[in-house]
Structure formats: C-alpha cells, structure tokens
C-alpha cells in the first residue's frame, strides 16, 4: 500500500484521505483504530484513574453536571463533557440518544417503542436506555434506514 503525506495549506484541517477501490477488512480495521484506538477515555473509579477503551463502554450519561461511563458492570466517572465525547466519537459506533446520553450501538441488544416516537434500547448487559424522539433519526441514519 502506498502512503503519501501531504502538508495541508494554512487554515486547512488535518485530514486523512483513503483512496481505495473497496473497503476491505484490513482497511476497515485501520480506520477503526485511527478513529477509536487512540481515543481511550481517562476515567475515575474507586478513587483511581483508568484508561478505558471505547469498545468496553456501553453508554455515557450526564447526571448533575457529571459524566459517567457505563461498562458491562462497572460505572466510571469522566471529567469530559458530553458534547466533547460526542465530537470525539463522531463517526464511530457511538450516537447521541438523548440530551444526557450517548450510546454505543455495538452494545445495543434490541430496540423497542417507548411511546410517542421514543424508543428504548435494551443493552447487552440488560440495562435500558431511552432514545428520545429528537435523536431517533440519528440512530436510523446510523443503521442505514
């Protein structure tokens, strides 16, 4: 594979362009590692700081100006704001589910209606997260509907 590095012009954003005939497994893995691999989240748990990989996270939730990340069983706290996390994980499996929640789509087991345009996501660890009507189109677009 040929790798070309071009210096952007002044004012231009750094950008990675992948020129390929089709996205194969190897390339997708590469894209995923660029998007998510370096974005480990520093989180607080029982007074200690940990680096948490995004694929371990089920969802983020903001409660009383604090942001928590929910793993399969544990709950960690992060200093990052929800909007920062939304930006950080743009284009990955994470999507905004409500004003206070960002959900990892890879950890959603199923979806069910929750009345008046809202949906409820049943996570693979058994927890339930509400997807507000406002963000349902975001989810639909993500899954290709």
């Amino acid at each position, binding site marked *: 594979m040929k790798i070309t590095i071009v210096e952007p012009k002044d004012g231009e954003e750094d950008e990675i362009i992948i020129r390929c005939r089709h996205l194969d497994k190897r390339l997708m*893995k590469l894209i995923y590692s660029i998007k998510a691999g370096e974005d480990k989240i520093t989180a607080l748990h029982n007074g200690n700081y940990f680096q948490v990989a995004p694929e371990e996270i089920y969802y983020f939730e903001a409660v009383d100006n604090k942001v928590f990340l929910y793993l399969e069983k544990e709950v960690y706290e992060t200093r990052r704001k929800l909007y920062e996390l939304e930006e950080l994980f743009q284009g990955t499996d994470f999507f905004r589910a409500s004003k206070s929640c960002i959900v990892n789509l890879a950890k959603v087991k199923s979806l069910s*209606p929750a*009345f008046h345009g809202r949906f409820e996501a049943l996570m693979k660890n058994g927890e339930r997260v509400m997807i507000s009507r406002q963000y349902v189109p975001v989810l639909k677009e993500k899954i290709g509907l």
Partner: protein
Amino acid sequence: MLKKLRDMLFVYMCVTTCVLFVTALYITIFWPDVVLGVEILWQILSVSFLCSVANFICPQEVSGKIMLILYILRYVITNGIVLGCGIWFGWFYMNDLPMVLAMLFSIAVIFVLVSVAVWRREKQQAARMNERLQVYQQRKERIE
C-alpha cells in the same frame, strides 16, 4: 420535521377515519331524520385536525412518569376540543345525558383506537430498526 409531519398525517388519517365511522353511527342513532349540509364534512375535518395537533403536544425529552401525565392531559384536551366543538356546531345538547355519554364514549374509543394504531406503527418501525441493527452489528463483527 418531515418525519413529524408524516407522523402527524398518520394520526390525522386515523382520527378522521374513526370520527367518520362514529359520526355515521351517532347520526343514525340520535339524528336519524336530520338533513345535513356539506358543513358537517368540514366540521369533522377541522375537529379531527385539532385533535391530531393536540396529540403532538409533547416536549422532546420527558421521563416516563411525565409522559403518562401528558398522555392523560392529551385525553382531557381531546375531550375538551370535541365537546367544545360539538356544542359550538350543535352536535348535541348539554342537558341530553345519553347524547353527552355517547360523545364521551366515542372520544374514549377513538382515543384508544388511534393510540393502538400509533403503537403498532412504532412497533413495526422498531422491528425494522432491529433488523438493520443486526445487519450493522454483523458487518462490524466481520470487520473485527
């Protein structure tokens, strides 16, 4: 916005259809000899429209408890709209108890029918979303 408009149109369609059936029944029972003008059609359409709009009074993000309160409130508002318009258009007399009861019963039946129709539609949507979710996750697993 387009999605909201589509949802609204769906509710309006359901409400209008139900109201039309109930009106036919109501006229047959309480006003069998009356000669009706074209205005009754406009009355049905406008009352159905008002009820459909009332169905969409809901903030974007509310808890389940508030949602239930809003649902009850919506039912009360629908009763207000139909009874208010009914008096205005002269559909019934307030002192005629069977007529008032028939109106209340009709509102309740239509409200339940429309709620069930909306629920079924959302359930179908959820089924489609679950299918796509599975495809999404399988594709992702293959890549990993």
